[in-house]
């Protein structure tokens, strides 16, 4: 409940919309309560009165029409206004949530699965929107009609009205009990249906295996079982909902009979005029709908609270890596040359289990330095610290002598570029993928970047050239082509320092050569730190840093390290033996 309250400020700009909705609901409800009342007046005064009056009847009919038109207008405007306000509130929550998530540091993404975050942004917010629309509306509209009906009944006749009040708790109790069970059954059916879907998805994908192993009957049997379970749940759910609706209807009909009984006596004894009885019969029927709908909102409220809790939890997280309080003004400094210095860095992902121990090194501006070591030696962690995906527990990192924690994160990321092993593509054109949707990178710059890394010819060969649409998940580019695109990105952004995490994927020799050329183009004119998986990549590096279990064990040129006969020399020897592992037979054979 509290988490829901915390989302209320997002509705602040729309208070007047919600007030407007309340007023319009008042008008609409007023018109619907007025309608039977007008008929009552017509019956009692103009039709059965001592002097039947056609003129009076026409006046009433005209009034009735006016009331109906007012109701129409009020209802239509109300829906628009409410939905606009509700959608706008959710829009604000979504944008706030998304930018909040993007602001989080890497630690957050290590512990929160992307799938769950997507659910938070898309479906949890959708659920919350029901609070601002359906729930709010139901409370106002149904609450109001209930009140109005009660008031109208009391005005007509206190005694009969009091009898009718006895119904309210009964209706609420029945309705709530049914709704709870309906919700359970609905969820059972849903779960079983998704079991069917999961089974189908898997079996259609593996149909070849079923057929080769000749297990059609067995799988059909398994499917029949799931299918049968779903049928059972679905029938049970349907039966309960029929029972619920009919029970309500039954109560309604019995209530009318009861009103006739009680009211009939009153009319007989001339305690009330007949029109009053008529109005009661109408009102008692109108009683049921709002109660039904309010109890339905009870379910909505429950799921909304759950969703708001989940959103609240995400919004409460603060990024580990903080922006500096007094950032260095980058504009006031001379252009970055690109000298990187690590001073005594100690870092642990989980406290007490450091992956880097007192690492220090300096990369001179413009140098090309390779980092090698086994998996878990700490190569990637070093690079994550330079981009401030994480902050080290001890030591500091400087660029041109400036502590990177004194730079604005956005500034730092403009200085340090990163090419990852895995190339992420976005749904969009090739050009957009190179410029990363930035408006400040022109088409010419995109083409120039692609040319620089040798991707231009490859892109031109695509069906629509630079305008070819790519899909994040659909692999409509080969590994090598993806690599080239990620190189072009970096050239277009042109950072003075580049971290390159070499891809491990097998490329055929032609693509390999293409990528190698691209890599050289990217490294030109900037400080480059390469995490190498192939020793051939860094053979000509200005310096090679060898890491082992979080410590630097060797440093030097290729030749110097080989001559030394240490870990590097051993890696080099092993790589030749293991060569069969990265076969030239060409990637994953299809």
């Amino acid at each position, binding site marked *: 409940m509290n988490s829901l309250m915390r989302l209320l400020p997002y509705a602040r700009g729309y208070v007047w919309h919600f007030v407007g909705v309340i007023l319009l609901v008042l008008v609409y409800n007023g018109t619907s309560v007025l309608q039977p009342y007008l008929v009552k007046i017509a019956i009692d005064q103009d039709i059965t009165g001592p002097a039947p009056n056609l003129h009076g009847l026409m006046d009433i009919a005209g009034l009735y029409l006016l009331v109906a038109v007012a*109701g129409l207008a009020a209802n239509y405007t109300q829906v628009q206004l409410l939905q606009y306000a509700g959608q706008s509130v959710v829009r604000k929550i979504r944008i706030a949530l998304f*930018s909040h998530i993007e602001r989080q540091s890497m630690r957050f993404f290590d512990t929160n699965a992307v799938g769950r975050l997507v659910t938070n942004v898309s479906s949890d917010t959708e659920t919350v929107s029901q609070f601002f629309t359906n729930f709010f509306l139901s409370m106002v509209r149904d609450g109001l009609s209930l009140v109005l009906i009660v008031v109208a009944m009391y005005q007509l006749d206190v005694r009969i009205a009091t009898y009718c009040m006895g119904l309210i708790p009964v209706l609420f109790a029945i309705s709530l009990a049914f709704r709870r069970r309906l919700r359970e059954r609905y969820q059972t059916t849903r779960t079983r249906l998704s079991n069917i879907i999961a089974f189908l998805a*898997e079996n259609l994908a593996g149909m070849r295996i*079923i057929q*080769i192993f000749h297990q059609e009957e067995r799988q059909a049997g398994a499917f029949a079982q799931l299918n049968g379970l779903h049928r059972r749940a679905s029938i049970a759910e349907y039966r309960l909902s029929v029972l619920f609706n009919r029970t309500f209807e039954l109560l309604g009909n019995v209530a009318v009979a009861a009103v006739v009984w009680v009211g009939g006596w009153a009319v*007989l004894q001339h305690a009330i005029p007949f029109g009053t009885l008529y109005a009661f019969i109408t009102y008692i029927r109108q009683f049921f709908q709002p109660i039904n709908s309010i109890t339905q909102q009870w379910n909505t409220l429950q799921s909304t609270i759950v969703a708001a809790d989940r959103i609240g939890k995400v919004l409460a997280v603060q990024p580990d890596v903080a922006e500096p309080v007094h950032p260095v003004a980058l504009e006031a400094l001379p252009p970055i040359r690109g000298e990187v210095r690590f001073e005594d860095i100690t870092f642990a992902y989980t406290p007490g289990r450091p992956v880097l121990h007192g690492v220090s090194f300096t990369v001179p501006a413009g140098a090309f330095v390779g980092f090698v070591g*086994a998996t878990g030696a700490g190569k990637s962690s070093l690079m994550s610290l330079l981009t401030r995906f994480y902050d080290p527990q001890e030591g500091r990192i400087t660029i041109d002598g400036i502590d990177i924690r004194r730079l604005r994160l956005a500034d730092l990321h403009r200085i340090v570029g990163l090419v990852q092993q895995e190339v992420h593509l976005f749904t969009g054109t090739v050009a957009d993928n190179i410029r990363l949707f930035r408006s400040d990178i022109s088409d010419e710059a995109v083409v120039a970047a692609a040319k620089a890394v040798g991707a231009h010819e490859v892109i031109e060969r695509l069906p629509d050239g630079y305008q070819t649409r790519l899909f994040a998940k659909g692999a409509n580019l080969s590994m090598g082509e993806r690599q080239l695109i990620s190189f072009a990105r970096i050239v277009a952004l042109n950072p003075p320092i580049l971290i390159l995490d070499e891809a491990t994927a097998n490329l055929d020799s032609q693509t390999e050569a293409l990528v190698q050329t691209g890599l050289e183009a990217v490294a030109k004119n900037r400080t480059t730190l390469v995490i190498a998986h192939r020793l051939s990549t860094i053979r000509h590096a200005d310096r090679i840093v060898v890491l082992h279990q979080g410590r630097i064990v060797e440093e030097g040129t290729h030749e110097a390290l080989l001559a030394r006969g240490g870990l590097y020399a051993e890696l080099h020897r092993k790589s*030749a033996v293991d060569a069969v592992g990265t076969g030239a037979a060409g990637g994953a054979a299809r």
Partner: protein
Amino acid sequence: MDNPRQLLKQYLVRHRWAYLVSILSIILSEIVMVQFPHLLGEFTDALQAGRVDGRTLWHDTALLAVVGIGYVVLYGFGQMRNGMLGRQFEYELRRKLFLHWETLSTAYFRQRSIGDLLNHALNDVRSVRDALSGGLNILTNAVFLLASTLVMTFRTVSVKLTLVSMIPIVFVPFLVGWLGPRIRNATRQAQEALSDMADLTEESLTAIRLIKATANEEVEQRRFTERVDAIVRRQMGVFRRSALMQSLIPFMGSLAFVIALLYGGFLTITREIPLGSFVAFTLYLAMLITPLQEMGYVFNYFQRASASLQRLEVLLTEVPDIRDEPGAAPLGRVQGEVVIHLDAFTYPDGTHPALHDVRIRVRPGQTLGIVGRTASGKTTLVNLLPRIFDPPPGSVFIDGHDVRTVTLRSLREAISYVPQDGFLFSTTIGENIAFSKADATREEILEAVRNAAFTEVLETFPDGLDTLVGERGVTLSGGQRQRAAIARALLKDAPILILDDSLSAVDMNTEKQIIANIRRVRRGRTTLIIAHRLSAVRHADWIVVLEGGTVAEQGTHEDLLRQGGIYADMYRLQETEQGVTA
């Protein structure tokens, strides 16, 4: 194959008595229901005329209650029965669909997205079910309620009054029929916008390192905001239409009421109809709007169901392209001789032959190694053997029998197969391995596990063989999946074993073990191994090198090295290529 329309017809015929009972009970309930206003009207008149006393009041009230209860019980019964029958049909239709899919070949699934097929199994089946249960209920209800209400008003109130008052509300079904699909369409668009946003979120968060490293957060926020704005726009499009419908329908009712009030009041004043009739009529009028509105919905229901039936028909009438040929005979005892004499093979959806001029002979009990570059046709070639894709007649033979002339069942019983992706089902590891042999003993399974060099991995799992695979259990790495799939194939113990690049994700050492085990347990039985590491095939009796869909070289390992062709090149490269698999 079964046509779903036929299926539906058969189903309706088979359950005709059940449907008759439920429809009759709904009709009966309407007849009871329309008595309600009539009774109220009579009561009003009696009250007016002073003909009511305590006894008749009790009588009338009881009658009202009986009618009210009777209607609910009868209608509820019919509704419930129809709903159950509709759900039974849903069950049968889904079952039919799955059985049908099991007969279709890989070529079929290759051309269609599984998402689409699931959509049919989910939504099309459901919309047929909805029409059959809810739609039928509403239709019966609406038609008979309308008919009996009209009959009642004609008989007991006034034909004139009824007809005149009804003018505004006859537009209701058209309004619903017209606006309904538009609302649905707008809703679909809003949902698309919603999933666009979810897609972008996923894309963006998956690439969060890249976005952060390029200081691109603001650009992503802009892109996200565009998607969110699109949602708001499209949602409002939905609400403009639905608000129109929601407000216009009651308005039509009010219009009818105004006419009833005016004209009915006039008739009452002029004593053409009694007050009771007027009262009853206002109630009848309220009863008329709902069925008219529902007629519009029913129209949409049936329209949708009919489109769904059409789509299902296309699905279910798809003829399996790989099946027993007329006169197909079982294969009998298989020695394991494989002869391929293929001029050309083109995929059903392809334009160029994937294989051409392939001549290979594997003697019974021999091991054949197949190597070659990506897309050289290795997988295609072995897929022809168990007829995953159909070879042209007279091109692939087992023990001298054309695979196309033998029964699928006996052919596939003779072949065991390991796919390159190591496909496993989301059941336990044990069940996966015993997939072809549900009655396999634990010892047999463990033996297969040992031969697939999977024992050590299995021991690290909490429940051993009973560990669930997939989302609810452990996620296996590519190499682990491949080994489980090898165990599954070894347990099948068929005369012919095919390994389709099934060692690509295991390390060198494990590969050596597995190859040694296979050589041992498959001694004297035919084995086909596709590999891209030459170490996996160098001991084969015969090695075929495919290049561009045809046999470029063949011979023993030594022969091929001597020839100094592609194989020799590959061997040299793999020996010397530098790499750190650190």
